């Protein structure tokens, strides 16, 4: 029930972000969502793509250093308290949220967020027990494939 996320090391200097983006563009790989964490000196670009093996290969061939990490896509209600409900379900577990970011797509009144947990298996179990939907990679990809409009997808 996890997605494979690619992390790329970047120096925090003008012109450094474009290299991996260009490499993926040339390989015809679409970035489904991303998050960029930065310090004064360096940054880590985290990406979700459909064919992560191929993306990793082309990035590494272009000289990038890439790390693969499992992350969890979780459905979040698009209303006040939506995210708080998710976190409440995790409160009694050891699962710590290292960071999170969102997909641009929406399922009706629900959004999808990417969670990086220290212990993903525990987190998945706790979320499932609380009736919170974990979105599989297949579901994500098919949702995004159908996204032919500029706006959010309704499903």
């Amino acid at each position, binding site marked *: 029930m996890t997605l494979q996320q690619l992390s790329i090391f*970047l*120096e925090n200097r003008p012109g450094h972000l474009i290299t991996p983006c260009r490499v993926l563009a040339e390989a015809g790989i679409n970035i489904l969502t991303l998050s960029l*964490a930065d310090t004064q*000196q360096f940054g*880590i670009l985290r990406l979700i793509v459909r064919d992560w093996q191929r993306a990793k290969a082309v990035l590494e061939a272009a000289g*990038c250093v890439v*790390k693969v990490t499992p992350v969890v896509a979780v459905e979040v209600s698009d209303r006040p308290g939506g995210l708080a409900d998710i976190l409440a379900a995790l409160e009694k577990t050891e699962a710590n949220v*290292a960071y999170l970011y969102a997909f641009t797509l929406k399922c009706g009144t629900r959004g999808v967020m990417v969670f*990086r947990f220290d212990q993903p298996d525990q987190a998945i179990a706790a979320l499932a027990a609380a009736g919170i939907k974990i979105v599989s990679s297949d579901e994500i990809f098919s949702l995004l494939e159908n996204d032919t409009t500029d706006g959010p997808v309704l499903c």
Partner: protein
Amino acid sequence: MEEQWNDSPGGFHPASAPDYLPVAQLRALQLHRLRGVVRRAYEHVPLFRQRMQERDLTPECLAGLEDVQRLPFTQKSDLRDTYPFGLFASPMSDIVRLHASSGTTGKPIVVAYTKEDLAVWAEVMVRCFAACGLHRGDVIQNAYGYGLFTGGLGAHYGAEALGATVIPVSGGNTDRQIMVMRDFGVTAICCTPSYFVHLVERAAELGVDIRQLKCKVGVFGAEPWTEGLRQHIEAESGIKAYDIYGLSEIIGPGVGIECPCQNGLHIFDDHFLVEIVDPRTGEPCPDGREGELVLTTLSKQAMPMVRYRTRDITCIIPEPCACGRTLRRIHRIARRSDDMFIIRGVNLFPSQIETALMGIAGTLPHYQIILTRHKGLDELAVEVEVTPELLSDQISAMEDLQTQLAAAIEKTVGLRAIIRLVEPHTIERSEGKAKRVIDRRSL
């Protein structure tokens, strides 16, 4: 032949006999040879004679071995200043070989050999290989560069004189090296330690596990390397990695070698007289104290070297070696005095930074030391290329890594360093000696 030569595995190689001379006889031999070499240089090398006369010295001044300390030093610049043949003590008709340094800065230095010099060179190389446990029947892949560089031909003739099978593959073309190693049943390889690391990495990419091959010994030299790198090489390749020492100005590879105890290098001091001096004052250091290695050739004809300043930093290990050799032992050379940089009055060597980095990263990442001056104060920055092993998707883990690296460097050298993590392949690669220190303070 077979019965006459006890050079079977684990046997005592006859060429190694001088390694075990009684010390008194060895010192007597050294003094005898020292007098000969000083007389030869005095008679045939104008620069040396002039320096002796300036000090009111004659070759007869050598009453004992310690009188070598009265003699003038020879520096690398002397070889450049007398380029190309100014330090030769033999007529060209007696010189059968010339070699030259790569000459990274300015003119190369040229070194010469008579037939007898080449015989001595082969002899000390045989003794090196024998000390590494090699013998007739071994298949030695010689990946030192053949040509003007002394490494290739020096190792070649030594390996042949040993009676081993020599593969003169020379340097470069890594894929072919791996093919040769696997298909020719290579049991030992000679190259620089950094090249061997590259070779093992490339072999892994090609799906070749060096551990599964017959190669069991590496004779590595031509650049300083650390004990940490040896452990890395031995763990990754399953070979026993021996450090060989030499320099063209003295003879080439074969000045000294590790024995199976791997605790310091034995210098063949029946041919090379060892001194350790303070690199700043030139005063002799007592045994055990670190200083600059100074060598005098005791049997060279074409180019006798008296008190040559090697710029290599080491110390004498005075205790006898468990292997039984009576040859003087020096600590492995991990740094050169010309690698040294001074920051805030502290003398530092890249190898110290290297040891700290390896301790944290497990393996040695590409790195570079950058020295800058900010508001009159020296700053030490170390750029470290991020490897897949070092990368985390979490900023906190990367910041931890920076902190750990800085702490390890501070613990080793006593200075806070700024750690800059940089992208792969951003630090310039060098075919020869890596440029480890960039000093921007003069601006």
